[in-house]
């Protein structure tokens, strides 16, 4: 019986082809919006998680307000620094595996002796610390620094290509505060799309930093812990110890990578919910469209309904014919919406990736099985709900009046 009712519904959709296509287009657009938004949201999640989850045992200790997803990127020099005593105290906290410090200061950079000095923020790190934070993959050209390297630096893309009239290349000689350094590596371009930007980085070893600037300002320290589960409690302990050392309540802050990840994820979650809510409006409109088409169909086929009842169709038969018709429309619409959504999300992702000022890393949308299942079930529910009323209206027609209907 289902096969027969399916056949009747299918024939009717085919008979009114253009109207059916317009109706299912409504559903398709709604589902497309949901699928592509979910795909992009998921893609962003994966990108951020990939970048941060490998650092889940890491705590970043900075002076001042500290690290948040809003101050990501280049950190400002506040004029206050961590002391050697702070670092020794950090190393004594139980559960701490390693403490690496980062020195920051301003210095003048010149290239080719063209007399054009540029003030830059230079960063000094221990080799171990540097290798922990950067990999060969981060570089566009050249190599990372190795233990024992002297007078070698790594620079950001913008430093190499935008700061001076001539591009700086690997092996080029630059001067920091008048002291000679050779460029050993240049970072790849990141733009605004990345979690942190290396584009303006001038990176050297701690020893070279002191040599060049004569200072040893510890701007931040990177702490790793043995047990990932103790990251949060260790971070609190770190803040307590350093604040006590300086006698200030908010002197320093310690932020775990996982807490940054959490806040990024919750913001993305909210964003995604809002976007999907907007897409749902499209679906509601589409469902009204289906209902409208079905009601028109019921009106047009009043006589047909009467005939079917006269030759023995039950109310259930009539209802199922119309519900199957609505379902068929919405499933075809939903399936095309899913396909469109998969293409659409790559399109939007490309657009988003190109929108950032620096180009940004490519955003790859991730279409999960869940998104597809959700898209299909939402379209089916929409189909059933919006054909329920028209189907009921059709079923309760009196056969004699329906047959007489012209």
């Amino acid at each position, binding site marked *: 019986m289902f096969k027969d009712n399916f056949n009747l519904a299918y024939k*009717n959709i085919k008979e009114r082809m253009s109207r059916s296509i317009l109706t299912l287009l409504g559903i398709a657009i709604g589902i497309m919006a949901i699928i592509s938004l979910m795909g992009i949201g998921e893609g962003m999640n994966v990108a951020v998680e990939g970048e941060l989850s490998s650092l889940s045992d890491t705590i970043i200790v900075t002076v001042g307000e500290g690290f948040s997803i809003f101050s990501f990127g280049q950190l400002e020099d506040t004029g206050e620094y961590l002391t050697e005593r702070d670092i020794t105290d950090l190393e004594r906290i139980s559960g701490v595996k390693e403490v690496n410090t980062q020195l920051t200061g301003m210095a003048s950079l010149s290239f080719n002796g063209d007399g054009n000095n540029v003030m830059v923020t230079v960063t000094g790190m221990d080799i171990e610390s540097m290798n922990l934070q950067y990999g060969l993959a981060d570089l566009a050209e050249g190599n990372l620094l190795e233990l024992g390297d002297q007078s070698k630096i790594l620079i950001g893309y913008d430093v190499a290509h935008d700061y001076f009239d001539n591009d700086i290349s690997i092996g080029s000689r630059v001067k920091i505060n008048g002291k000679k350094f050779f460029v050993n590596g240049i970072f790849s371009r990141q733009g605004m799309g990345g979690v942190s930007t290396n584009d303006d980085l001038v990176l050297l070893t701690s020893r070279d930093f002191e040599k060049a600037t004569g200072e040893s300002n510890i701007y931040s320290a990177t702490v790793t812990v043995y047990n990932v589960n103790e990251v949060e409690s260790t971070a609190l302990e770190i803040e307590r110890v350093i604040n006590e050392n300086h006698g200030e309540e908010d002197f320093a802050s310690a932020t775990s990578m996982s807490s940054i990840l959490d806040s990024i994820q919750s913001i993305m979650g909210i964003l995604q919910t809002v976007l999907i809510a907007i897409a749902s409006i499209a679906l509601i409109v589409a469902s009204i469209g289906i209902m409208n088409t079905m009601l028109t169909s019921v009106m047009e086929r009043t006589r047909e309904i009467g005939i079917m009842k006269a*030759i*023995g169709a039950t109310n259930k038969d009539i209802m199922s014919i119309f519900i199957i018709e609505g379902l068929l429309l919405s499933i075809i619409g939903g399936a095309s919406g899913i396909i469109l959504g998969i293409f659409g999300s790559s399109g939007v992702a490309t657009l988003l990736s190109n929108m950032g000022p620096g180009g940004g890393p490519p955003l790859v949308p991730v279409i999960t099985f869940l998104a597809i299942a959700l898209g299909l079930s939402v379209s089916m529910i929409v189909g059933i709900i919006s054909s329920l009323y028209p189907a009921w209206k059709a079923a309760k027609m009196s056969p004699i009046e329906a047959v007489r209907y012209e």
Partner: protein
Amino acid sequence: MSKEVIVTKNLSKTYGKGDLQVHALRKTNISIMQGDYIAIKGPSGSGKSTLMNLIGCLDKPTTGKLYIDNTDVYTLSENNLAKIRREKIGFIFQKYNLIPTLSALENVTLSMGFAGVDSKTRIRKAKKLLDMVELSHRISHKPSELSGGEQQRVAISRALGNDPTIVLGDEPTGNVDTKSGNKIMDILENINNQGETVIVVTHDPNIAKRARRILSIEDGVVREENV
């Protein structure tokens, strides 16, 4: 002696209210036997279609009762009423009333489908019925590709699909030419000869004459005519 298949008890139908009341059918008591061939005739507006629709379980009477095979039809639920329509009654309309989107064959199998007959049996039987009305060469044509007479023959095949107890024709020849009309009446007569109860509504005296019993209606009053 054959049994009564249709019995009406004071069956009446009134349309409208108060001064505008129209008595389409007044207290009607008729009894129709298995294998009867009956013509219901009368001028238009006399109430013959009303009687036909009541017997065909398409309409509900204002008062009175209708028994089909001893079942008090109008006390039944919607579902059981639908069951009576598809199992006991084969209805042939004046305007054929085929489903325009379905082929001749699909139109014939439709009512069998509602009765739950499996698709193989259905198709075999529908082909046989279409063969009987000499349409085996047009089974895959849509109604719009068939002439009026052909459509009506498809409608007859459809009416016979579930081996009904009663075949009802509401002016079955009303929309076709005389030649096609005669062919249709021949088919109905054939069906009757095979033991089927046939009731035909007509205003054509020549058609009425072919029946074994004639009921004539005027102003909602039914009267048996001597043949």
